């Protein structure tokens, strides 16, 4: 590897994880924790339920928070990576063009009540946004954001965090992870300095007894989750099988909408567009999706991914092969949103299970030879 490559691959270290500090929090203090955040001047985003739709919204009172859903419909990535944002705008005056590109990303923010699968997505995405180009939109916001997540004590059939190396009580990406270990106690794992500072300021956390453990509380959900496929087998199979009839068989029902990528906590593709008027305009950054036919159309009109089968394969290749190849992590946290919300039940778990089974068959045949 050349020095250049080495530099390209260097990833800014995420905030140093110190040895987690264990504290205890009483459930009745959960609301106080949110209130304290608001009082300290944080912008607080938390799951909010409107009709049947649960999404992360900015809240002004703990009463608005809804923590009962397994996951929110949309992931909290939009807090750091909004679906639409202005990069800069300009006004054409008589003798000059005035550019307005000053934006303040430093508003202290708390993402409260996100699930460990969502929190885990942040350091995975850091790798991309701190790769060859350091994206200030993501990084500045990330620095100003505190992630307080809550371990899952339940899951549904679409959840598969345990199959991609995570768990319903993973601390990855959380500044503070809360796990309800009994009806009257949360165990707080304070993972970062940022988290410790905040915990200190709130004065709501108690000393934790040495006997506090989260494992008994999350054991049942871990068992329910099980292991849905063998993730170790996925990449080696993908390395060998770019062209395979399997892709046609498993993706033919895909209709090419953007739901899977837009509900995903780790999909991060965007498009830069100009919205111009006679006296000014703006450069806008919008979410984009590899599932759209127009995503790869060249100026010549040629489209290297001419059908939905190749576009769907791309999504899986990106998550389980290209991203691990380039940035050393699987681009998926097993949150299950793509599985849950696909109108055609394409079902990523089914596809990964299929790959893991095909790989097992290949291995057996190799050994037999």
């Amino acid at each position: 590897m050349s020095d250049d490559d080495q530099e390209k691959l260097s990833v800014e270290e995420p905030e140093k994880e110190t040895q987690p500090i264990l504290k205890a929090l009483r459930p009745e203090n959960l609301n106080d924790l949110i209130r304290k955040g608001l009082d300290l001047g944080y912008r607080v985003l938390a799951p909010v339920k409107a009709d049947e739709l649960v999404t992360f919204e900015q809240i002004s009172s703990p009463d608005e928070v809804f923590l009962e859903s397994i996951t929110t419909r949309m992931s909290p990535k939009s807090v750091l990576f909004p679906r639409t944002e202005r990069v800069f705008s300009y006004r054409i005056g008589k003798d000059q063009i005035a550019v307005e590109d000053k934006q303040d990303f430093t508003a202290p923010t708390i993402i409260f009540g996100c699930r460990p699968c969502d929190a885990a997505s942040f350091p995975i995405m850091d790798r991309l946004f701190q790769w060859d180009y350091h994206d200030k939109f993501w990084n500045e916001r990330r620095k100003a954001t505190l992630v307080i997540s809550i371990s899952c004590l339940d899951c549904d059939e679409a959840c598969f965090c345990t199959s991609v190396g995570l768990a319903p009580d993973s601390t990855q990406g959380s500044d503070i992870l809360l796990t309800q270990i009994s009806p009257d106690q949360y165990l707080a794992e304070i993972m970062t300095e940022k988290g410790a500072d905040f915990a200190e300021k709130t004065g709501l956390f108690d000393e934790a007894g040495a006997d506090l453990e989260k494992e008994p509380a999350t054991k049942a959900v871990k068992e329910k989750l099980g292991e849905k496929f063998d993730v170790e087998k996925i990449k080696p199979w993908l390395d060998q099988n770019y062209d395979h009839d399997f892709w046609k068989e498993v993706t033919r029902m895909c209709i090419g909408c953007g739901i899977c990528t837009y509900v995903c906590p780790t999909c991060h593709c965007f498009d830069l567009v100009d919205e111009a008027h006679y006296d000014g305009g703006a450069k806008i950054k919008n979410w984009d999706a590899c599932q759209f036919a127009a995503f790869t159309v060249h100026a010549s009109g040629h489209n290297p991914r001419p059908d939905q089968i190749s576009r769907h394969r791309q999504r899986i290749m990106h998550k389980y092969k290209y991203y691990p190849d380039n940035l050393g992590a699987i681009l998926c946290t097993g949150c299950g949103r793509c599985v849950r919300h696909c109108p055609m039940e394409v079902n990523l778990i089914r596809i990964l299970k299929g790959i893991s089974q095909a790989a097992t068959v290949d291995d057996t045949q190799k050994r037999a030879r």
Partner: protein
Amino acid sequence: MIEQIREKAKELLTSGEVKVVIGYENGGLPETTRPVFITTSDEVERLVWNKHCYANLATFLVRNEVSSIGKPAIIAKGCDVKAITALIQESQIQREDVLILGVTCEGVGDPLLSKCPICDVNTPRDYDILFGEEIPPKTDINKFADVEEFEEKSPEERWEFWEKQFEKCIKCYACRQVCPLCYCEICIADKNQPQWIETSSHTRGNYHWNLIRAWHLSGRCIDCGECERACPVDIPLSLLNRRLAKSVKERFGYEPGYDKEAAPPFTDFKQEDSQEFIK
């Protein structure tokens, strides 16, 4: 019923009369099904028919990934058949190019999807082979009751309602992709030289998209409700679609998907067409 469907599918594939049977198989999540494309007779056991067969499979008739396989047989509920008929009316497919395995249907979903209680095609109006007992069409239904109720609101209230709904839009275009009548090879929303419809999901962009989509389906939407079912942020798109359907019905006495010989109003001119809007 499913046994008869499987038997027929096997026969059609063995004889070579069709190359693919488009149907449903059990999904991986509970109470779901997934579209399946059966090309060999030994796979017919995968086919299922139950109240979770939501998807309007007609959308695959105009998708190259499926149409390239060869002549299809398609399992279709009454609402799905309306989509097939509308595609024939709009010259996207020929009737003889598809074999319709019609299924009578008492409604899908548990609880029933909102389209089902106001359905008047429990027995499909067109099919090659019908499965299930015929159900006579309901006559005492008002398809537009909720639209009429909504029209009672003031323009300000309606504006506020839609503003709130469209604000949720994330521009995933699932409403378009799932729609059997949204078959344009290049959608106006994807034309970017110039960019007619802003791709941003700010208020203006969301209005652009949602209104254009609804207008392009006026007099064409057969109300299968797939856009609303697919929408990941629960925008009540069917209410919008049916508001336009109501206008078309009132002005032109026309509903798409009922008669394959009928000319769609926007492709046809009649002397007696209502023209009160020309002042």
